[in-house]
């Protein structure tokens, strides 16, 4: 187990490098959009990875609520954080791509809007975690995660009627794509997933470590650290009030 982490790190680095090479030099150039289209290999895998992470977040949150398992909570926290990062990548690469091909940075299109709302929901999740003062933050956060997950399909329906400008889904959506592009795309996705796993894992270990340290510190901080007990360190005298 100890050795799995460096191995994963090495594999991820190799995969990312190879996928980068494939995306930039090997994949065929798109006819109408030109080289800008290569952003595709980062845009789409990021989106898929973010979805995956948010899904894991939901599962972990449910597990936490049922089992009260601290590990599940750490997983939820970590996937929330990393998911927001990947979602941000989508929201940044999207407009960068949109500007040259559509001529605008942003439009209220169904796919764009759902992504934005998804991002908003999970940012509010992180804000709650950051601002909570309760020792029960995990519970509150898990509940919010479930609310967020329930909201997503509704968001999707509520903007169903927006005219769309964004390409249809590649897989299962009936769109057609050059198989070589698809190959590169899937490769990139694999690399991104490994990367996400790697980062989440590191973050998870850090989080668990932080909690252990906190607990140890808590139990050690004896009376001197705690209260105004210095003056009465010696003994608690009894009341001598005559009644």
């Amino acid at each position, binding site marked *: 187990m100890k050795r799995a982490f460096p191995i994963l790190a090495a594999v991820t680095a190799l995969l990312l490098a190879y996928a980068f090479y494939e995306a930039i030099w090997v994949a065929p150039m798109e006819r109408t959009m030109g080289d800008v289209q290569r952003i595709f290999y980062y845009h789409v895998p990021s989106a898929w990875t973010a979805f995956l992470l948010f899904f894991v977040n939901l599962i972990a949150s449910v597990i936490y609520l049922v089992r009260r398992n601290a590990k599940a909570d750490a997983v939820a926290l970590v996937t929330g954080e990393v998911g927001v990062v990947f979602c941000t990548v989508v929201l940044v690469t999207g407009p960068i791509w949109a500007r040259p091909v559509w001529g605008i940075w942003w439009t209220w299109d169904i796919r764009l809007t759902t992504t934005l709302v998804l991002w908003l929901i999970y940012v509010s999740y992180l804000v709650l975690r950051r601002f909570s003062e309760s*020792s*029960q933050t995990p519970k509150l956060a898990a509940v919010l995660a479930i609310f967020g997950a329930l909201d997503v399909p509704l968001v999707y329906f509520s903007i169903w009627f927006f005219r769309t400008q964004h390409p249809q889904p590649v897989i299962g959506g009936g769109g057609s794509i050059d198989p070589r592009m698809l190959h590169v795309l899937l490769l990139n996705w694999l690399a991104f997933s490994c990367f996400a796993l790697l980062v989440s894992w590191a973050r998870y270990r850090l989080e668990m470590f932080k909690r252990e340290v*906190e*607990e140890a*510190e*808590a*139990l050690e*901080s*004896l*009376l001197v*650290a*705690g*209260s*105004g*007990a210095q003056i*009465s*360190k*010696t*003994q*608690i*005298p*009894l*009341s*001598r*009030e*005559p*009644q």
Partner: protein
Amino acid sequence: MTESAATIRVTNLIKQFGRFAALRGVTAEFDSGRFHVILGDNGAGKTTLLRALAGLADPTRGEISIFDKNPHEACREIGYMAHPSLLYDEMSGMENLRYFARLYDIAGDARSSEAIRSVGLDPELSRPVGKYSQGMRQRMSLARAILHDPKILLLDEPFSNVDVHSAQEMVGLLKQMRDAGKTIFVVTHQAALLEGAADEFIWMQAGQIVDRTRHLVPDPAGRA
């Protein structure tokens, strides 16, 4: 005094607030029908222990069993009184108790006025609780805790701000309740008030129970 079976069992209770642990492994058993007094310095963890027993603070680790149930399930048997009054400042005492009686499914006002009278206040007082004097508020808070006639009373400094005469009456009331079979826990810094009345004194220090004595001894064994 008959030794009854332990009804409250606390096992290795730890309560952590961030970097600080207010309870560091409390293990104890308490018999029912007895009058326990919890003593200790400021910050020793007495309030935290009481809140855990009342089911208000989920312990970080450890277990509490009350009549073999957890504190939440046993909530009907528990009466809790805290530092803050746990009353609505804008309503009169009677209105407050009437509302809380509904929460415990107690019908009629009889029980509410009985509770108010038993702490030496007047059920007719129409002033809102926010305008009571500190000691009156404290007593009304006790009335709220005993309203549903619980088997276990958890009282956090019930005598602070109460005048000596009324405090003695409150002790009398508690003694009566103990004799009627209730289990009573009182946190206080005025232990002398309870010298004759209490069955056991429990000493806390730095988040742990350091000693339990039958009488109020000046220097209980085992204390540093």
